[in-house]
């Protein structure tokens, strides 16, 4: 698993209200919602983003509401991953649960510039800034969380566990 694309850089405390404003939450249709991804912080994001592009941000990315619509719209826009100095806890949990790759790496988040081209290896946590030719290493996820990600999200991993259990019982 990896991604390669251009960077959209944002500051600290990017909140879920600017990622997907609540005025659009009268639907749960991901494609409909994704038309407004990042609208209140960067109205051009949806017009510019290409598959595999990377969001790089500061501390506490995704703070605020518990709306899963936030990681969902970022994923639906085909963003390859989000790299931040830190993530707000519900956003972090939601991203893992729905299978949006996220990486915590303060050094990379500081150094990588808007518009740079980067390549990310999710297995090793290696972030390569192709533009500046620098490499960074993000903290790997604990194995428990890696299993959720590998299964394709929380519900898929629960299903896997259930199947395993019922096979054991047979």
């Amino acid at each position, binding site marked *: 698993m990896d991604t390669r694309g251009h960077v959209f850089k944002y500051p600290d405390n990017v909140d879920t*209200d600017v990622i997907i404003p609540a005025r659009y939450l009268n639907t*749960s249709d991901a494609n409909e919602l994704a038309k407004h991804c990042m609208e209140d912080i960067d109205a051009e994001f949806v017009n510019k983003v290409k598959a595999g592009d990377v969001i790089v941000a500061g501390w506490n990315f995704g*703070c605020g509401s*518990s709306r899963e619509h936030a990681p969902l719209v970022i994923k639906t826009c085909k963003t390859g991953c989000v790299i931040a100095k830190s993530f707000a*806890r519900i956003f972090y949990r939601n991203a893992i649960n729905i299978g949006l790759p996220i990486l915590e790496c303060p050094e990379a988040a500081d150094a990588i510039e808007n518009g740079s081209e980067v390549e990310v290896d999710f297995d090793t946590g290696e972030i390569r800034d192709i533009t500046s030719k620098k490499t960074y290493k993000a903290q790997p996820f604990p194995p428990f969380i890696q299993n959720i990600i590998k299964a394709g999200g929380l*519900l898929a991993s*629960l299903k896997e566990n259930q199947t395993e259990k019922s096979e054991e019982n047979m």
Partner: protein
Amino acid sequence: MGMTMTQKILAAHAGLESVSAGQLISARLDIVLGNDITTPVAVNEFKKAGFNSVFDKDRVAIVLDHFVPNKDIKAAEQSKQCREFACEHCVSHFYDVGKMGIEHALLPEKGVVTAGDCIIGADSHTCTYGALGAFSTGVGSTDMAAGMATGTAWFKVPSAIRFELSGRLPKECSGKDVILTVIGKIGVDGALYRSMEFTGEGVSSLSMDDRLCICNMAIEAGAKNGIFPVDDVTMKYLENRCEREPVVYTADDDAEYESVINIDLSKIVPTVSCPHLPENTRPASELHGVKIDQVVIGSCTNGRMEDMECAWRILRGKKVKDGVRCIIIPATMEIYRECAKRGYIVDFIDAGAVVSTPTCGPCLGGYMGILAAGERCIATTNRNFVGRMGHTESEVYLASPATAATSAVCGYICEPTEV
């Protein structure tokens, strides 16, 4: 090593003797909650994963509160989806228009949640129920779906910050001034991933409404949960209200805390959080004179009976300043009814305010008080992010009901002098 109050509750629900910070556990859930915005996403996931029943129809709560009475056709469709799911699975705690309230005011009021519970809710302000001595935290819709299906959730056991409260609040201050002061001190990620445990001799002087307000905004400091010890105030509140027996957990004497922050309640002053982050707090007196276009008194943070009473004391017999819109939203039907019974609603209307049935509406910029570009609102709500209540060039100042109601009369931000 000893455990914090939160760790005690988590250990008990994970069936473990003890847990420590950082440990990953699977815990049994007492209540799984969702609202009209997060439940549809959870229902889609629940169905997609092939689950066909909820783990316990009495342990799932679905509350329509964000966009009801339905604000538009799409919102109506979402409400309908929640209603059909609740009906199909015989969800006993389903609250529709006429019975509903803002979820975090409603669930404690109805006795759905109690001391010692382990609760997840697909709404970030689910941390409110820590006021009752429960572990309660906000999650997303997928967690809600998994919780509804299995009755369990995974958690990373949090470390904690202890807030040692002493003294007694001045008359013009309330729980809102306490939590805004705390957030101003530690920042919007000051308690990231951690518990905020409120203890000390100052706790006993705080009403249940104060405690609910304080825990409600723990998420605004990034916390996993906020929690108060169970005392006489808690037990009196829970008495004859709760359908399940409360279970009292206390922190061990040798529990480890990342830090201890002392808060002298007698030194708290009316506090306002300026745009566009809850941590941008200043004493209300320093903002005296900042002109406002709108006032909102309500929300899961400050739509409870004491908040209504406080607003009424200030607004009765007075007039909302010309050019200011004042919107008052009691948080539950029971509070709305009590406001009607006590004559508050007539007094609010005579003062020039409008009074709505319960809804989250304006707090999240949904409807019922959206701001235009350049407009400014002082609100008893919980967030003041860019565009939170409407246009990205509008501004929200967060404050207590006393400060908001006083400002409504003045037409500018004004600290309450007498309440």
